[in-house]
C-alpha cells in the first residue's frame, strides 16, 4: 500500500521549459488536490478534482493545467515555467461519500521545483 506517490522529488527547470508532476494513489481516493507551498508560507490550492473527468480551479491556477483521466492519477502540468513557480508541490487525496465536510487529506511527500 504505497498511499499517495509523487514524482519527481526534485527538479530544476529553466525559464520557459515545461514539465509534468506526477501523482498517483492506491487508496481509492475520489477527491484529489494539488497545493503549492512557497518557502516559509502556507499551502495554496492550485487545482482539485472530485472524480475522474472532473477538475476545478483552486486559489492559484494560472500557469498550471491538470487532468484526471483515471481515479488513481492526477498529473499537474506546468507550461512555460517561471521563477515565480519555484515552490514545493504537494498532491493530496481523500475518500469521501460526497458533500462537503468530511475530507480528510492524505498528502504525498512533495515535489521540490526550482525554476532558474
Amino acid at each position, binding site marked *: 500500500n504505497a498511499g499517495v506517490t509523487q514524482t519527481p522529488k526534485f527538479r530544476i527547470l529553466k525559464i520557459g521549459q515545461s514539465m509534468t508532476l506526477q501523482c498517483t494513489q492506491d487508496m481509492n481516493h475520489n477527491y484529489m488536490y494539488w497545493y503549492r507551498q512557497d518557502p516559509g508560507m502556507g499551502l495554496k490550492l492550485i487545482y482539485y478534482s*472530485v472524480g475522474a473527468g472532473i477538475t*476545478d480551479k483552486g486559489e492559484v491556477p494560472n500557469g498550471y493545467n491538470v487532468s484526471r483521466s483515471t481515479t488513481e492519477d492526477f498529473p499537474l502540468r506546468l507550461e512555460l515555467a517561471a521563477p515565480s513557480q519555484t515552490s514545493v508541490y504537494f498532491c493530496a487525496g481523500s475518500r469521501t461519500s460526497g458533500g462537503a465536510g468530511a475530507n480528510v487529506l492524505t498528502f504525498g511527500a512533495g515535489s521540490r521545483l526550482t525554476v532558474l
Partner: protein
Amino acid sequence: QQPVQSPQAVILREGEDAVINCSSSKALYSVHWYRQKHGEAPVFLMILLKGGEQKGHDKISASFNEKKQQSSLYLTASQLSYSGTYFCGTESATNKLIFGTGTLLAVQP
C-alpha cells in the same frame, strides 16, 4: 478567501499550554487541523464538522463555532514533539479545502 490564523508564531517551554485560532470570512461546513514538521508533508490531526462540536485526542483538542466561523486548537502540557507549523483548513460548499496562514509552534526543553 484564506482563513486567518493567530498567533503567527509561539514559543513555549515543555509543559506549557497554547491556543491557536483560525477565523474565516465564509460560512463553513468543517474545519480541519494539520501539523507540518520541517521538510515534511502536513499530517492530519482532527476534523470538526458543523454543529459546534469539540474534539480532542491526547492533550490536543479543538472547538468549532460555526456562527462565528472560528475554530481554536488547544495544546495542553506541550511536549517537544508538538513543535511544527499548524494549519487550519476550512471547507465550504464547494469541496475545496483552503488552508490558513499557519502558526509556527516551537517547544523548548
